[in-house]
């Protein structure tokens, strides 16, 4: 399921030397050096997001998604994951949010001022949190709305519809069912399939695991992995389910209070003591007392 090569060798190495070498501090020179790299399909550089002109939600977030990879964006409720994704897909404008600082490069071009549909046309599409299928449309109609921006003709769209049905056989069975009456898992598949219909280079996937049974979550993550490998679609995956996300992603960023507090290879993050304790719920030895939380605070390197 995950990458076996990573989980073994590097993870041990990471665990052996805290702080591990392939986990870097969020700010600082490291980021600046590779944010212009052409190998990155997406690079977000130090963005600030303000809602309603006053509420500062993102306080300088930077991240990169290498072409053809899955990158996880982790964090608790309200950490800024969804806001980050919406800043990239430019859906913020419709929520009275605004990117006030920083730059967002997608596929080698600044996309900060583009409309969401222009961005979809260029190959970057968001699958929003909570599925958001069009409830009164059938599954097939839902999928077809994803092809709205395409100009390459009905035959090509038809072909991709079959492709989507290939990845999601369940959707094919339920193609004429009203989406509002399908199960949560089917709706999530429908939402991912709908995004796929736009022929994206990159999908911003927001909380695909929300409200789904663990088995279904696994099924969906497997399909994501599959799409990533076979169709070459890059993913930026915002998740609260840290365990799942780190299992499927190659690299991860951890957001807290609108800042990236940690980033690193997924395998290294999964072995990191802090991540284990605060996001995976695995404590070493006996339970830690709240006094020791201070130790964690000290680790927030961006404060320094």
């Amino acid at each position, binding site marked *: 399921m995950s990458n076996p090569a990573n989980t073994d060798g590097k993870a041990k190495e990471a665990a052996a030397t805290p702080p591990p070498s392939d986990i870097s501090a969020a700010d600082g020179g490291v980021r600046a050096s590779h944010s212009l790299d052409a190998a990155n399909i997406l690079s977000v550089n130090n963005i600030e997001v303000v809602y309603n002109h006053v509420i500062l939600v993102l306080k300088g977030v930077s991240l990169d998604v290498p072409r053809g990879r899955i990158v996880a964006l982790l964090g608790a409720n309200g950490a800024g994951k969804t806001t980050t994704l919406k800043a990239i897909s430019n859906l913020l404008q419709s*929520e009275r949010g605004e990117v006030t600082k920083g730059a967002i490069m997608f596929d080698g071009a600044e996309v900060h001022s583009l409309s969401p549909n222009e961005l979809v046309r260029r190959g970057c599409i*968001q699958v929003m949190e909570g599925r958001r299928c*069009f409830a009164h449309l059938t599954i097939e109609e839902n999928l077809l709305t994803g092809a709205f921006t395409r100009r390459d003709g009905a035959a090509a769209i038809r072909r991709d519809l079959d492709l989507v049905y290939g990845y999601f056989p369940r959707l094919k069975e339920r193609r004429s069912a009203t989406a509002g*009456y399908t199960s949560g898992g089917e709706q999530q598949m429908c939402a991912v399939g709908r995004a796929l219909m736009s022929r994206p280079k990159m999908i911003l996937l927001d909380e695909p695991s929300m409200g789904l049974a663990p088995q279904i979550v696994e099924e969906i993550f497997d399909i994501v992995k599959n799409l990533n490998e076979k169709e070459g679609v890059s993913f930026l995956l915002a998740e609260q389910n840290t365990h799942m996300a780190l299992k499927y992603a190659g690299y991860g960023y951890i957001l807290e209070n609108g800042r990236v507090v940690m980033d690193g290879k997924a395998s290294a993050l999964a072995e990191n003591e802090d991540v284990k304790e605060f996001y995976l719920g695995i404590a070493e030895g006996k339970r830690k007392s709240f006094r020791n939380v201070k130790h964690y605070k000290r680790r927030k390197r961006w404060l320094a």
Partner: protein
Amino acid sequence: MLGPILETLIGGLLTGVLYALVALGFVLIFKASGVFNFAQGAMVLFAALSVARLSEKFPLPIAIVLAIGVMIVLAYAIEFLVLRRLVNQEGIVLFMSTLGVAYFLEGFGQTLWGSDIYKIDLGISKNPIFLFESVFPGGILIDPEEVAAAVICAILVTVLAVFFQVTRVGRALRAVADDHQAAQSVGIPLNYIWLVVWATSGIVAIAAGMIWGSKLGVQFSISLVALKALPVLILGGLTSIPGAIVGGLIIGAGEKLAEILLGPLLIRWFDLAGGGIENWFAYVLALLFLLVRPQGLFGERIIERI
């Protein structure tokens, strides 16, 4: 007795078709953008004025095509100057803005086209047709213009239904109606969709305006027809095209029948004057409906999974 009742019923249903046409314009815009467009009546007036004045210079079909152009330009102007600036404001703000548009259009229509009473000649005979003369004494009287209205309405609704169900833009319209942010996220541009619905409801306004205009003459009072569309909307549901049609028919038939059936009873039982029932019947019916079934007969079914 049956003859007059049948005649009233048919007359009422045909009037109802006209109410339905106006209500249809409301439904289109409300469905796709959640805006209750108070300016629909003003748009009907504006459309009727455009057709009337243009048909003085051009033959009617050309005048209609030109008027469609005018309504599309108008839709674009409203989208660009008003709606686009108010994205994500509260519903009440958008509603107020359509009030502004309504009064602007009423005035501007007169500035542009003049404020006299104009006529639209659809080339349909004004002479009533008598049906079933052998069955009922005197037969049943039918206004050919109202029959034409019904036919136009039927064609329009069929075209709209096909447009909504099978075309790419129609599908996008329904998607926007369901969840506009999700629609935006898959690359459906809201501005374009709004332009399409306002233009479409402008075209529906042309149909309504032409028929009303040819019946009553094109004059300011046409914009008040929109007020009759409100009970139709409450009855049929704000989001349902079939609802607008059925609601229109019920209101149209109901108020005419109430006038001839309820009127005499009120006179006999309560010694009232008994007239004017047609004027309030629709609203009382709508109020009752609000109490019993607030989403209307065909309002969007709220999909809930348990």
